């Protein structure tokens, strides 16, 4: 005879089967991550050497050479992006956190969120039409500008969130002492929220450092060193793309090595930020 509390066997089987599938899905996601990272590490380590990090690309058939100019180019492009995207993003974030109760703020918040989802290649088209066409040349500046536009909404929203987290008591204490509102924001709220803002900025940098699509027809790529912001400049993701779709084994090796450097750079930023954030949250 069945006791009233026993569970029908098919419910037990369904329970274990479906919960098991969920765990398997999680396992699959982590496995894919490890597969991609592992493959990049193994393949990339083979092509990574001092030559790769210090030389410019060689012509086809001439083995050796490296991506030094592309690595530096990516750093320059990200630097321009920071100059373009960070100040406006932080300003807009402060506005949303401190003044953002009206309809304008809701609209800005919404538009910023939608802008986060706009395909990066569309931003590249925009930068092309805005800067490349009038200046009549592909340029580092156009590429950096496109990356800055992509950074902008990310920085805005993370800044808003961190400034919002500043306790109201701090603000009220300062206001009660007669400090003007702008000084309360600049001297009390911003320094308190600084680590959160920096975290957001670095996450945004990590995101744009690996972007390729918006650079195709803005920064364009370059086989040589270039220090002029008005000239085409090499970028690590672009160089990887060109080498990956080429038919040469030697270039494929270099593409893997470049990927290892790029992934290392991006993961260093992402994981580093995560650790900093965690220490703040749990370490008091």
């Amino acid at each position, binding site marked *: 005879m069945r006791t009233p509390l026993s569970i029908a066997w098919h*419910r037990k089987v369904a329970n274990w089967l479906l*919960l098991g599938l969920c765990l398997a899905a999680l396992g699959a996601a982590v496995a894919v991550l490890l597969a991609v990272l592992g493959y990049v590490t193994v393949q990339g380590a083979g092509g990574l050497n001092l030559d790769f990090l210090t030389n410019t690309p060689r012509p086809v058939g001439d083995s050796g050479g490296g991506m030094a100019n592309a690595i530096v180019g990516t750093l320059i492009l990200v630097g321009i992006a920071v100059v373009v995207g960070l100040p406006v993003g932080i300003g807009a974030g402060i506005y949303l956190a401190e003044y953002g109760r009206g309809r304008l703020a809701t609209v800005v918040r919404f538009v910023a969120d939608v802008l986060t989802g706009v*395909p990066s290649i*569309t931003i590249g*088209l925009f930068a092309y039409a805005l800067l490349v066409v009038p200046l009549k040349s592909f340029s580092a500046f156009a590429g950096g500008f496109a990356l800055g536009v992509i950074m902008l909404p990310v920085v805005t929203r993370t800044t808003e969130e961190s400034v919002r987290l500043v306790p109201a008591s701090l603000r009220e204490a300062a206001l009660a002492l007669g400090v003007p509102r702008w000084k309360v924001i600049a001297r009390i709220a911003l320094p308190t929220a600084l680590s959160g803002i920096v975290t957001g900025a670095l996450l945004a940098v990590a995101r744009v450092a690996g972007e390729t699509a918006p650079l195709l027809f803005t920064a364009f790529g370059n086989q040589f060193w270039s220090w002029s912001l008005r000239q085409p400049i090499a970028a690590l993701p672009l160089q990887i793309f060109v080498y*990956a779709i080429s038919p040469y084994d030697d270039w494929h090796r270099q*593409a893997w090595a470049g990927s290892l450097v790029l992934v290392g750079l991006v993961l260093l930023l992402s994981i580093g930020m*995560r650790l900093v954030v965690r220490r703040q949250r749990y370490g008091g």
Partner: protein
Amino acid sequence: MTETTVGRPGRPSPREIRAALGRASTGRRGDAVWAILVGGCAVGILLLVLAITTLMVVESWPAVQRFGFGFIVGQRWDPVGGHFGALPFLYGTVVSSVLALLIGGPVALGSAIALSELVPRQLRGLLSALVELLAAIPSVVYGLWGIFVLAPLLRSAVEPALRTALGFLPLFSGPAYGVGTLAGGLILAIMILPTIAAVSRDALLAVPNDQREAMLALGATHWEMVWGAVVPYARTGILGGFILGLGRALGETMAVTMVIGNRPAISASLFAPSYTLASVIANEFTEATSDLHLAALVEIGLVLLGVAVVVNALARLLIWQIERAGGSAAAGPGRGR
């Protein structure tokens, strides 16, 4: 100010106090400057989006005028002959993105359920971070991996097996190329997985425990509790995550360009090469010579922008709804993504 009131012995005269107050800043001017400064930044974002839209409409105008609505339904893309129809790209984009949702969506939802309901609390942060790291890997690296690992695997093992088992369906017929719609859909599935998983996990974590306890008290098994009480409660947020993932898949460029085969033809088979909106811009824009060709490519970008804005707006509205309902419980490391 302090000089007059504190720095001198004895009480200051009323006249001195008035003078000091007159000199003291009320901060009104600073406040105004500050508000204009940060408000300007906020308005700047609106102007930026306006500029993006305007500039793209202007740049694509020759093609819009020339082809009208036929641009979207035209099947022939022949830059040399001056024929520009975007339907093959629209088709490739939609099919690869839907495929990505069908493959990546369930895996992402499963991961989210595992993360919020099954995994011990101590492991949750680590595993969530690992899943989200999938989003940190650059697109071009996925593309490289797709070319040299995924596509050969599909060509030699997966596609022949699918054809043997399901070859009677047109979807799984035809020669196995490796690079093609299936490869594009798979790579996209991997890339949108972390987005869907993170948003769904936050939505599930925001479900109040009463829901779970009530269901268990009714005698439900663990799974029945999850599927009957937790997932339905979080469905708005989960849907938002799926739509956000769809938006990401529609606009993804590099990885897809590298594995989808880049052939502007509509084919019933998932094994056949196809082309997407983003890929054709990436491949042809720098090589386009005629003004009409450039305009047509920008118009494709405009179509892409329109689709992305609609999809993302929808996703945001849904996610905002859940954030408002879930309050601070929805807060987590993945919220900003």
